């Protein structure tokens, strides 16, 4: 009972940190999706050097830990570009997620039957128009499940920003526990927030999927 009372008592103290988690996650995902869209277009280009730009980006980002990327933004780029810590955090998260989302979008674009592009072109549509009108809407729908998964990963990865002084949920748990010695309770609260967020994400993604599934292929 004592355990639950402590949790109820301390939850309000987590609210600013929970808001911080949401901010860096949402901003990180937004940048990630934009980078992912751009990256996917580079990746499907038949010009080798355009393709190479995206490949190098993915190679570097996927091949190094997010924590290292956060450090680069925090210790190197933050000063060079005079960013605040939060900006450094969501930029790093965005850049990191962009690499994975690039591959998600590329995969779903390439999974659309080639006949769709041919049918659009045979009506006289230009390549960009066929992409926008015919290929991307179908590809976007297919990318929802892996994208939802990536969003959940991004949410949990945001906890790594605690290592660069961002006062998000996990750092707040550590800070409070250092003062009240209730490590289990504080970590439990942090877990509750993450579970709450991931539940909402999952629900939203499922709703989106159901909504886009009107044509029930």
């Amino acid at each position: 009972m004592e355990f639950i009372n402590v949790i109820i008592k301390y939850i309000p103290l987590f609210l600013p940190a929970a808001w911080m988690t949401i901010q860096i996650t949402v901003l990180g995902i937004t940048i990630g999706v934009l980078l992912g869209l751009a990256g996917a277009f580079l990746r499907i280009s038949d010009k080798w050097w355009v393709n190479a730009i995206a490949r190098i980006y993915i190679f570097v980002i996927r091949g190094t830990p997010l924590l290292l990327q956060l450090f680069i933004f925090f210790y190197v780029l933050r000063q060079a570009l005079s960013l605040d810590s939060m900006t450094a955090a969501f930029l790093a998260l965005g850049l990191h997620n962009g690499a994975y989302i690039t591959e998600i979008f590329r995969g779903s674009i390439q999974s659309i039957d080639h006949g769709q592009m041919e049918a659009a072109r045979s009506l006289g549509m230009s390549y960009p128009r066929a992409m926008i009108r015919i290929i991307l809407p179908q590809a976007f729908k297919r990318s929802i499940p892996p994208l939802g998964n990536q969003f959940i990963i991004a949410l949990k990865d945001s906890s790594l920003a605690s290592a660069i002084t961002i006062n998000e949920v996990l750092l707040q748990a550590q800070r409070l526990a250092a003062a009240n010695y209730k490590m289990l309770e504080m970590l439990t609260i942090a877990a509750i927030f993450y579970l709450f967020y991931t539940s909402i994400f999952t629900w939203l993604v499922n709703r989106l999927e159901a909504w886009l599934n009107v044509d029930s292929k």
Partner: protein
Amino acid sequence: MLRIENLHKSFGDLQVLEGIDLQVKKSEVVVIIGASGSGKSTLLRCINFLEYSDQGKIYIEGQLLNEKNEREINQMRARVGMVFQHFNLFPHKTVIENVMEGLTQVRKISKFEAKKIAYKYIEKVGLTDKEKVYPAMLSGGQKQRVAIARALAMEPVVMLFDEPTSALDPELVGEVLLVMKELAREGMTMVVVTHEMGFAREVADRVIFMDDGQILEVGTPEDIFDRPQNERSQAFLSAII
């Protein structure tokens, strides 16, 4: 209407078309037959540049097409209807939206007008009760009829059919052929790649037999089916009839 001169196409080392010459007159129905891999489909796809030929010239309504000019190719494609073996309807759009797509996006016709035109062609292929459903809800034969309506709505000068009934269950072939016969009767210029010999015999003005990337024999349906001259067309026809 359509003139092809000395068309060559290869995929890597494989020579698929070896110097095709063909003329199709206005309102003519030309049916191309031949074994799988003979180059029939590739020939059809070269006509509207879904494949780029290695050599040769293509004229549509007297205009020589320049494959380098993307704009010109797009304009040509808008006037050349294409019907695919696997329909290739847009699954995220309803029947009427499928038919309207080229009208609003390529011909830049207002939505209101496009709807009227689309409806006319949906009616023509006998699917007025299906205008608001998605392709996934249709049978194969219905899908192909929508695909024909989509191509017709662009008011093409020639229609290309690439094995339009090959992916259909046997009992659904008839409804598609019926639409095609009606088109032929109305004077549509058509080039049809098909294995439906009954259709070829009944509807074609000319039948072309292709083998190994070449046109081996051209003639009226009677010439080709009753008195084939070439050894290989004889062998092909005796194998399938």
